[in-house]
């Protein structure tokens, strides 16, 4: 009980800092998820008729995900300096694969008879894509976006190591001062707020899904 009370004291004496870092992390999550969604969905759509390009783009996105996060955050510092930019690039590269893979899977999952009848009724390739294929693939694509968003919440804690800010600041400072007073409270702050943010992001994306997934497709 003492722990919890002292954590609340810690939190309430630093609301400005808490709000600021929370907003930094949220900025990462939103900008990274939006950018990665645009790029991944576009790549998935453009390569849908080209198995080679499709496999190649999936392989490249997979390679990004295998690079240790610490390395990926620091790799771009010589080019773009410290702060937001290297963090954004690293998280963007991480976020590509889940969305790209689900875009490819979603587009492929559309029943071939549906595609055949769409074409047979004289829908143009564009109409087939926007009226049939993308709406039917959307629930799967959105699931990929959710994974990427949650992934971004998690690894955004590392941005603090390249002076990128965010909730990782609390964890880093807490770890650095560990036996000293308030160090545990700082770590908790970082962890618990990240967790809360992840839940909130997930809830928002689920709600988007509920309203945007085509009716008649999933029960």
């Amino acid at each position, binding site marked *: 009980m003492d722990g919890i009370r002292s954590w609340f004291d810690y939190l309430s004496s630093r609301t400005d800092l808490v709000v600021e870092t929370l907003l930094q992390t949220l900025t990462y999550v939103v900008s990274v998820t939006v950018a990665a969604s645009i790029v991944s969905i576009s790549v998935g759509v453009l390569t849908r008729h080209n198995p080679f390009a499709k496999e190649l783009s999936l392989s490249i996105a997979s390679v990004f995900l295998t690079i240790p996060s610490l390395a990926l955050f620091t790799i771009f510092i010589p080019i773009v300096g410290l702060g937001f930019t290297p963090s954004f690039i690293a998280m963007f590269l991480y976020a590509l694969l889940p969305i790209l893979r689900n875009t490819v899977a979603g587009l492929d999952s559309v*029943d071939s*008879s*549906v*595609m*055949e*009848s*769409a*074409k*047979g*009724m*004289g*829908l*143009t390739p564009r*109409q087939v894509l926007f*009226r*049939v294929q993308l*709406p*039917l693939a959307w629930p799967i694509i959105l699931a990929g976006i959710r994974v990427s968003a949650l992934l971004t919440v998690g690894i955004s804690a590392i941005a603090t190591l390249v002076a990128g800010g965010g909730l990782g600041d609390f964890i880093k400072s807490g770890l650095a001062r560990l036996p000293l007073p308030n160090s545990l409270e700082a770590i908790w702050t970082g962890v618990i707020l990240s967790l809360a943010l992840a839940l909130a992001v997930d809830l928002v994306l689920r709600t988007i899904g509920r309203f945007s997934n*085509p*009716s*008649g*497709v999933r029960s």
Partner: protein
Amino acid sequence: MNLNPQDPPQEEKSVTTPKISLRDVTKTYSGVDTPAVKDLNLDIASGEILVLVGPSGCGKSTTLRLINRMIEPSAGEIIFDGEDVTNSDPNELRRRMGYVIQQVGLFPHRTIAENIAIVPKSLKWPKDKIRARVDELLELTGMDPNVYRDRYPKELSGGQAQRVGVARALGAEPDVLLMDEPFGAIDPITRFNLQNEFLRLQSELKKTIVFVTHDIDEAVKMGDRIAILRDQSEIAQLDTPEAILTNPADIFVEDFLGAGAVLKTLTLRRLNDIQLVHAPTITERTNRSEAAAQLRQSDFPFAVLLDDSRRPIAWVNQADLDSSDPLASNSRRIPVKLEPEDTLQEALSVMLQTSAGMSAVVDSTGQYLGTCTIQSLAELLTEPPVDGDSL
């Protein structure tokens, strides 16, 4: 109308100009030496159902898909309504031809009404016209619009889905329907019903239909003409079902028809086509000894017992007439009455079910018209088909 001197030549033209023509059409897939379809020439007349039938891999589906250019021909021409459409906009061409496939392919994220409205919508029909058309098509295909309009495809059975598939293909009133094994994935009973309903629909709509199937029975039932195809979509025989069944062109066609070809002709002929015979008729009030004498003089083993409204009730033989039991109580009752529109196959199956070996034919009000016997069927089958049926 007929007084107009310009009419006769026009009429003649509409008979002789095919709705769709394939001219020397060849399809070769890249990396394959032998063409899938080779130098195919095919004319499809306006308002007919032309069935393409053949063993798997003969290229019948490919041929169908060449017509709406789902597959682009490697060589040759496709003429539609007298116009060369080989190089026109394929999407525009497809909107003018309804397309029905075995797996239906309804859009699962659209309601039934939205599915049927797809082509009218891409042709930019006004909204209220589309709505009226959707309801009309649902009714036409035997689906209550109020029940099904706003449902989603996953709520439909296979048979219902294909009804909607047909309705959707008819959406923008195309003159032509291309159907690729439309009833192939449907259980036999539902298929039977859908075939009959579709034929009834066609007798009103008079569309030009190209129908692909691998089932010769379905081909015989549905086709005004049948093209039997062998490898590379080569036409082994193209004729009316009667002509093909009674006079197969070669051994390939004979093998493909199978042993039951003669029996299949029964599904094509109707009781209208045969001369009914007239067994003696009696009622409960007829004097029995007179009736017995009449029956003895005739060639028939049975007389027909009619009720007061001349509806047939039972077959009565000499022994029944000699006894004093009520005639209607004997075991040779006539449970199924045939009408002149019924096929000879149905007549045969009724005959085989009753011990009398005859079947009674009635008119639409149930009154007795005459009798069909095994002998009259046998005579018909051994006769060659009437000339002039085969074009």
